[in-house]
């Protein structure tokens, strides 16, 4: 099936936010996906939902699904200040206050008439692809959606890297599930026969975007860094972590983005922020943990106002560790999908996560580590205090800890976060001074 989807009209660029051209292009892509979802029924397309870490976008495209990603729906609702009510609606419907707010925002959105972040209707998925990478809550999330709305689920169990590596039996297990469970189910639901050459073609396209993304992320090794590897990276990872990996649009986007960033490097510029060009780069940080979405811009401002730039982040690796060499491999498509799922950041064990952060601190010449601990996300958060100690011990660089949430506005205390950040920047400065004194 070749669905014809009308490109949405670009939203008018507001005057008070500065973005690079690639950022506008990214926004158009995201809006386009919401439009595809909104028009899926009219265009006789089936709809899939799947999670970001380890998402099988290339595979889903082989079956012509319109593709929804519930975490991005929740975060988009968070950024648009809509998630608070959704969460409270879900809690009134029986969800515990203790559990993940992405789940509750999603359930609340469905209860509120299934209107998506852009105001368009979100069709009920025909299939929930439970690619279960790095987060136990995913399993309950889709069980809850299935229980309430009757959508079918198909499980892809991705084993955890408990021993710090991908063992052959783990890869084989994922491939077997793809062959024997996932692909037959997707064929049945979509009515489209699986064509492995089509998958290979999408993967060839993926690799181009992956190469360009890595060049963008690694540009932060320059001084000044031309990008913010956390707040800015959210825009950069959007298309490749969601419904666009494997598409020519994504290839174009990453080509444009890379060219822009390389130009910034040549010009010796720092990152562009919502308030324009960032001033002097005073602090270079590595950040662990997802961002807060309900106060995303305020949160970012606390950094760039102080001259702090994030040079690397773990969150920008939840959808794949491309900067450590992973690429989708068209010659071994199913094995490559398995490796991709198994390799996502939250599927790594804690010692591997510590190694990765230490490597970032060293390679990106960072001044220290900041952990944004998210109440909703035990997959990230459980163990972060030990990560912090271990990284401090191994690198000798100061680390700090702040606590926020993903999309629950009740858990973002701007004054507390700002105080902690300011104290942390003072600590970094003092540490630098002390080091300078010893040399």
């Amino acid at each position, binding site marked *: 099936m070749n669905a014809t989807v009308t490109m949405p009209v670009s939203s008018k660029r507001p005057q008070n936010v500065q973005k690079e051209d690639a950022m506008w292009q990214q926004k158009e892509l995201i809006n386009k996906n919401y439009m595809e979802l909104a028009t899926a029924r009219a265009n006789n397309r089936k709809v899939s939902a799947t999670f970001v870490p380890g998402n099988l976008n290339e595979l889903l495209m082989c079956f012509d699904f319109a593709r929804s990603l519930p975490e991005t729906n929740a975060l988009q609702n968070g950024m648009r200040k809509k998630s608070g009510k959704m969460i409270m609606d879900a809690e009134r419907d029986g969800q515990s206050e*203790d559990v993940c707010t992405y789940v509750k925002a999603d359930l609340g959105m469905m209860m509120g008439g299934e209107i998506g972040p852009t105001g368009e209707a979100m069709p009920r998925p025909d299939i929930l692809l*439970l690619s279960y990478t790095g987060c*136990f809550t995913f399993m309950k999330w889709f069980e809850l959606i299935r229980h309430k709305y009757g959508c079918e689920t198909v*499980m892809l169990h991705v084993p955890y890297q408990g021993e710090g590596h991908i063992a052959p039996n*783990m890869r084989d297990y994922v491939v077997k599930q793809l062959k024997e469970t996932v692909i037959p189910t997707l064929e049945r639901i979509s009515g489209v026969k699986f064509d492995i050459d089509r998958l290979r073609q999408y993967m060839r396209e993926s690799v181009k975007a992956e190469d360009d993304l890595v060049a963008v992320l690694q540009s932060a090794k320059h001084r000044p860094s031309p990008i913010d590897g956390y707040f800015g990276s959210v825009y950069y990872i959007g298309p490749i972590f969601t419904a666009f990996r494997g598409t020519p649009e994504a290839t174009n986007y990453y080509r444009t983005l890379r060219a822009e960033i390389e130009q910034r490097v040549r010009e010796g510029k720092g990152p562009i922020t919502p308030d324009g060009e960032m001033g002097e780069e005073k602090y270079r940080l590595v950040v662990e943990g997802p961002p807060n979405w309900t106060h995303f811009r305020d949160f970012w401002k606390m950094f760039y106002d102080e001259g702090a730039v994030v040079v690397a982040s773990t969150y920008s690796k939840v959808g794949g560790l491309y900067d450590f060499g992973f690429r989708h491999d068209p010659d071994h498509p199913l094995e490559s999908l398995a490796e991709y799922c198994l390799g996502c950041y939250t599927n790594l064990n804690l010692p591997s996560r510590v190694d990765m952060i230490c490597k970032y601190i060293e390679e990106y010449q960072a001044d220290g580590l900041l952990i944004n601990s998210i109440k909703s996300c035990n997959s990230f958060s459980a*163990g972060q205090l030990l990560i912090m100690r271990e990284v401090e011990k191994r690198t000798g660089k100061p680390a700090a800890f702040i606590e926020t949430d993903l999309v629950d506005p009740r858990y973002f205390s701007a004054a507390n976060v700002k105080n902690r950040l300011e104290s942390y920047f003072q600590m970094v400065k003092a540490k630098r001074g002390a080091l300078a004194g010893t040399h």
Partner: protein
Amino acid sequence: MSTATVSPVSAASPVQAIVARCEALFEDLEFKSVQQWKAAVPGRKAIGYMPIYVPRELIHAAGMLPVGILGGGDALEVIQGDAYYQSYICRIPRSTIELGLTGRLNCLDGMLFPSICDVIRNLSGMWKMLFKDKYVRYIDVPQNYQDEVGGVFYMQEMQILREDLAKIAGREITDADLNASIAVYNDNRVAIADLYKYRAAEPWQAPTSEVYLLLRAGMVLPVEEHTVLVRDYLAAAKQVERTKRDNARVVINGSFCEQPPLSLIKSIEMSGCYIVDDDFMLVTRWLLDAVPTDGNPLQELSRAFLHRSASTAAKYDATREEKGVYLMKQVKTRGAEGVIFAAPSFCDPALLERPMLQDVLSKNAIPHTAFKFAENTGQMAPIREQAGTFADSIKLWNAA
């Protein structure tokens, strides 16, 4: 509110003696019984495991003692453990770390962290970092229930564990060893099934505060000794006449990992409820029937896991229709009149599962109530009041 209490048995009775022994084991946070077991024969090893399920047969077949680690309870003062966790994370990992850092788990030669939730999963990595001289393994269990897919993976995972344990034991673990251990655990499963059946039939004769302690004893005792203890208790319990109350018969759900304080279980019983089924220490009842002892042992353990095992929040239900079937079966077969959802605070699996189970119960007109606890919850009055009101309402509905 009902004020019924569990009838005491005389201090000198065999029941009391068994319960007192189990209680002493339960309260022993130094794991002295494990130390004594190891000291009895030089070279013995003990392997700890966390909830919900590990194939203990493999540890036993290696000649080692499997030791269930269920946190520190309400008697352990957590000082260091709190420094490792944010306030919004449940209590069991912090008290388990406290046990480790204070040397109480030095008697263990290794720790297994089964696939249950993100917190216990990450604790496996923390353990690797904190206790570098110990054997540590994350035990992944399949969420795909086809023999040729999830079953093969699970057998491979068990084979890795088997080889690791063999290295620690310094000897091969043969199929014969494994089959012998499966037989020993089959016997234990039968004994516990009898205990649960007896409690459901005559809950006043085997209060859950005692049954719970018996199960806890099974976390530290050699399985053969535990089986005898369970049977001794059953025999002794039948010899004592206790007062039957007009209590409500309830199933407890949600306590499969972090454990409620014993006083909470007693409070539920004192409030007028007979607990006729539960999900405490599911490892003892995970496999629902006898595992064959004359085949390929790993394959048989795998088949039992895939096709004949209990259901809980950490296990995927492949279809919507399966949700709540296991709980409904508990309700029906045990003759329960209601369900109490007792989940630990911040327990993602239990709390996310709960609304679905509540819905299933509501559709089947089974009364239910819910509260949260932590292993160190101290205030029982609210729980007594809630459980008591629930029991009273069940009685009123039944009378109407």
